């Protein structure tokens, strides 16, 4: 590249009418040479033919020379164009920076608006990235699939038969009291088949993994602990492998420590023990489901192939069940899903919904900045017109303005990443419990890349429309001569601005509708009756070690002592225990035989929604009235006639026209009949959204053999229940120091926590909507101010002709109202179409709830009035004489 070429004056480039035609130029140049030589030869006296022949001979072979020159020139031109483009870009960036610095107010306002939009987006994208985009931290994670739930028997049969699933593992969550020699705490762990860790492709950082031998009865007292447990409970001791850890009262040998990066199924899991197949116990092997099956696909097998295979193989196990016939539909709808989808679960839809909302916010921010740009373009009209007159083509000028916009967006992105970093911290802190992979949410590289791409995209989005308008030939003509600046600037710009603001209002309305729907759902959920009286009740999870409390007598004695001590506490009105506490966990149900209706276990038995074992005082302690019959009593003990209490819906479903008291029900794999002695109202069990109203209660002392040792203590106090939390911890420790007590919370807090996801979503979408509303208001204010400033002369004339202040105000405000109304109608229409996607988060309110639509409409009209009142008042202060003279 020559220095000379680089110094070619910029304006000269615009003189080129067309791109050079390289081929033609080379031909011309060579032909010219040969022609000139031929002419000279003729002048020297040669015949024309000889003259040309001699000239060509002197010149040499033309064809290869021509090709070489064309090739050279094509490359040369490409180089020049690239260099010019780069130098243009450098120039545009310098120019853009200067022009942004010249208008600091505009630049700061625009950059902040964009920073909010980009920051909020980066924050939500970090959730998307951690939950949905980043692969699971296991080896070849795309091959991992979840096969749903089943029993140990089903696991063993499937493991043998499946071809498309190379390795199949099973695991089940465990929560046990563990004792490291200092204190007893309840710890979360998992019992896993020996092949699980190697299937995930992760081996312990210290010690060894499980061997099949570890999964057999008697050899199973080995445990692998998490990096966290190693650090916190063993102080990171180098000799931890080989030490003892008491799990549910039994001594386990630590054989390995997992790396700190490992988590399965989640970060709270502190230990892994081998799952033991008690092959002799047919009941446990075939009747107890709930084992989670995960597997690794064979090389080349797809999820779809595996699903087809599982749906043929699983039904073929029907005859293997020695206990009952699971029915015709058995195993036919077995699911095979990628493990990642299974782990993320319902959080997926939530993440996308938030992402959609936050994109709307960004769009609104873009529209606002585009509007600011437009207003500014008017002020720069002369500058642009001069540039155009000096030969700056429209494309070139637009490129300059768009470069400026992208620069602005990049400023926004830098600030936005700061905003995003803060927002991510706040978001992670506010995240509801149980969001999978929450610990992976961070301002990661993909998030930064996303913010960068987003900012350039937004720069283009909000830059192109104003640049197009500003460089429109219509606006340029005349401005240059200096006359009629007011006259030419007016209506067309205002029109574009107004259209943009109307669009902005439409977007904000969509968000506002969504947020009010969610808000109303939240309020509706909060006021939903649980069916029990949470006031003054406190609950605590009590976990006795299974190994030492296996004897029913010991467990019964322990809980009797505990309940007696609880009742003896000052300020306590009553105490009871329940195996699954409502609103704190999934209160799963049971399939039952119903006498005279569904007796044959070979037929599909009706599923009842919830199933709990309770001590006699449970109903009075929880404030659940007995509607018919009686409550349980101490007389309902082992050996006494088995009894149950059912909820109102159960009675209504099976005995609609009869008295349910005295009717009998039974477990599927048993011959025992249990008599219904009482009916209680339906209560919410899993959550406030719970729609399964069928509950069955058994006296705890007549509990099924399957129930565990863990119970929830519920205590009704006379006053503030929180004040007896410490006493509850103390009496558990006094009753037996090997028993862990955890999750001591008032029942109100438990109910409140069950709403945490709903609250989180509602608050987040509401803040997006508030942001959108604010930006919308700023947009209306901006365009009305602009309008007023453009129509100063008109206002002056109106006032001069005797218009009153209120008439002028009404003129401006009604213009704003029309703008908001136009945007609002479009927005409400769009909201009607999109809010259906929210259905799964709504409760007690329809997606097209008219009240909500009305509220939003009113809010936006009020905002339009407020936002336009300041410009309107400014218009009334126009002094007719000055404004007319100013022209």
């Amino acid at each position, binding site marked *: 590249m020559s220095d000379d070429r680089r110094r070619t004056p910029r304006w000269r480039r615009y003189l080129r009418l067309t791109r050079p035609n390289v081929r033609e*130029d080379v031909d011309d140049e060579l032909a*010219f040479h040969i022609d000139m030589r031929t002419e000279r030869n003729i002048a020297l006296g040669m015949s024309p033919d000889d003259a040309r022949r001699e000239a060509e001979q002197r*010149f040499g072979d033309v064809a290869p020379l021509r090709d070489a020159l064309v090739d050279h020139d094509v490359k040369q031109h490409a180089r020049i164009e690239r260099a010019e483009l780069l130098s243009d870009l450098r120039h545009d960036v310098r120019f853009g920076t200067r022009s942004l610095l010249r208008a600091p107010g505009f630049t700061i306002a625009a950059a902040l608006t964009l920073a909010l939009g980009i920051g909020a987006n980066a924050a939500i994208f970090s959730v998307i990235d951690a939950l949905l985009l980043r692969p699971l931290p296991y080896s070849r994670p795309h091959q991992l699939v979840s096969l749903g739930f089943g029993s140990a028997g089903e696991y063993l049969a499937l493991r043998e038969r499946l071809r498309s699933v190379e390795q199949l593992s099973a695991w089940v969550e465990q929560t046990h009291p563990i004792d490291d020699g200092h204190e007893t705490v309840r710890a979360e762990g998992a019992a896993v088949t020996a092949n699980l860790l190697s299937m995930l492709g992760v081996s312990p950082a210290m010690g060894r993994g499980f061997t099949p031998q570890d999964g057999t009865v008697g050899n199973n007292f080995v445990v692998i602990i998490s990096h966290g447990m190693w650090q916190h409970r063993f102080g990171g001791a180098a000799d931890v492998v080989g030490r003892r850890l008491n799990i549910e009262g039994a001594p386990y040998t630590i054989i390995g420590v997992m790396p700190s990066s490992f988590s399965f199924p989640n970060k709270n899991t502190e230990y892994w023990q081998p799952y033991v197949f008690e092959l002799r116990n047919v009941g446990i092997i075939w009747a107890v489901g709930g084992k989670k099956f995960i597997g690794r696909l064979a090389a080349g097998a797809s999820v779809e192939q595996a699903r087809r295979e599982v749906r043929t193989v699983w039904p073929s196990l029907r005859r293997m069940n020695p206990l009952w016939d699971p029915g015709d539909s058995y195993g036919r709808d077995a699911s095979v899903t990628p493990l990642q989808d299974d782990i993320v679960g319902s959080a997926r839809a939530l993440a996308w919904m938030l992402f959609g909302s936050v994109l709307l916010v960004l769009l609104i921010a873009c529209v606002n900045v585009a509007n600011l740009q437009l207003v500014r373009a008017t002020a720069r009209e002369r500058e642009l017109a001069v540039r155009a007159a000096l030969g700056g083509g429209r494309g070139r000028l637009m490129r300059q303005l768009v470069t400026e916009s992208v620069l602005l967006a990049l400023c926004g992105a830098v600030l936005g990443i700061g905003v995003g970093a803060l927002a991510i911290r706040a978001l992670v802190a506010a995240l509801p419990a149980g969001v999978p992979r929450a610990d992976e949410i961070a301002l990661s590289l993909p998030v930064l890349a996303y913010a960068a791409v987003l900012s350039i995209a937004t720069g283009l989005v909000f830059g192109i429309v104003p640049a197009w308008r500003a460089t429109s030939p219509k606006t340029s003509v005349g401005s240059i001569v200096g006359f009629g600046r007011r006259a030419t600037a007016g209506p067309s710009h205002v029109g574009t601005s107004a259209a943009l603001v109307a669009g902005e209002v439409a977007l904000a309305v969509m968000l506002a509708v969504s947020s009010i729907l969610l808000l109303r759902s939240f309020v509706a959920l909060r006021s939903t009756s649980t069916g029990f009286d949470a006031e003054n009740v406190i609950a605590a999870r009590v976990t006795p070690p299974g190994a030492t409390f296996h004897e029913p007598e010991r467990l019964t004695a322990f809980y009797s002592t505990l309940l007696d001590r609880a009742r003896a506490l000052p300020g306590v009105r009553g105490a009871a225990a329940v195996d699954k506490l409502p609103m704190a966990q999934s209160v799963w149900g049971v399939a039952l035989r119903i006498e005279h209706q569904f007796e044959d276990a070979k037929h599909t038995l009706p599923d009842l929604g919830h199933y709990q074992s309770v001590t006699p005082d449970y109903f009075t302690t929880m404030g659940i009235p007995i509607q018919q019959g009686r409550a349980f009593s101490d007389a309902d003990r082992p050996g006494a006639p088995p009894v149950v209490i059912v909820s109102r819906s159960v009675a209504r479903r099976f005995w609609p026209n009869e008295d349910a008291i005295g009717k009998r029900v039974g477990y599927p794999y048993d011959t025992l009949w249990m008599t219904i002695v009482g009916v209680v109202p339906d209560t919410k069990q899993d959550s406030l959204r719970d729609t399964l109203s069928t509950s069955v209660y058994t006296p705890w002392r007549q509990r099924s053999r399957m129930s565990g040792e863990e119970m929830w203590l519920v205590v009704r106090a006379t006053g503030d229940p929180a004040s007896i939390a410490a006493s509850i911890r103390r009496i558990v420790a006094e009753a037996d120091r090997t028993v862990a007590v955890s999750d001591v919370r008032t029942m109100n807090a438990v109910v409140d926590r069950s709403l945490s996801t709903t609250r989180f979503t509602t608050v987040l979408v509401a803040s997006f909507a508030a942001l959108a509303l604010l930006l919308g208001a700023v947009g209306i204010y901006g365009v009305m101010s602009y309008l007023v400033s453009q129509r100063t002369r008109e206002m002056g004339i109106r006032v001069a002709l005797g218009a009153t202040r209120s008439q002028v105000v009404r003129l401006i405000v009604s213009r704003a109202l029309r703008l908001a109304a136009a945007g609002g109608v479009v927005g409400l229409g769009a909201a009607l179409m999109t809010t259906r996607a929210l259905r799964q988060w709504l409760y007690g309110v329809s997606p097209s709830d008219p009240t909500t639509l009305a509220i939003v409409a009113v809010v936006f009209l009020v905002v339009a009035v407020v936002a336009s009142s300041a410009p309107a008042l400014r218009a009334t202060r126009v002094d007719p004489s000055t404004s007319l003279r100013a022209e």
Partner: protein
Amino acid sequence: MPRQDTGDLLQGTLGILILKSLVPSSAHGYAIARWIEDAATDVLRIEEGSLYPALRRLEDRGLVSSEWGLSENNRRARYYSITAAGRKHLRTEAAVWLRYSQAVTRVLRTEPSVT
């Protein structure tokens, strides 16, 4: 680029001749060829086509620049002119060449004379 062939001319010499031809004024390729022909009589014969690759090389190095214009007989022709860098290059190259040829001449004239 093919056609590196410069007839009887040593590699690199053609460039110097072209630059020299452009010192008084800019010229098109044919005029350059004529100038070399006249100045060197028949001692240095060039294949005229090889001028053009040489001109491109000089242009790439920033020693000459080109522009389209009208010829004396009103035809579109590409005119080459020497740049400031080209003049400087010509001065140093010419000095080197002169020193070199003087040295060779001196060697050839020493006894026993070959001529």
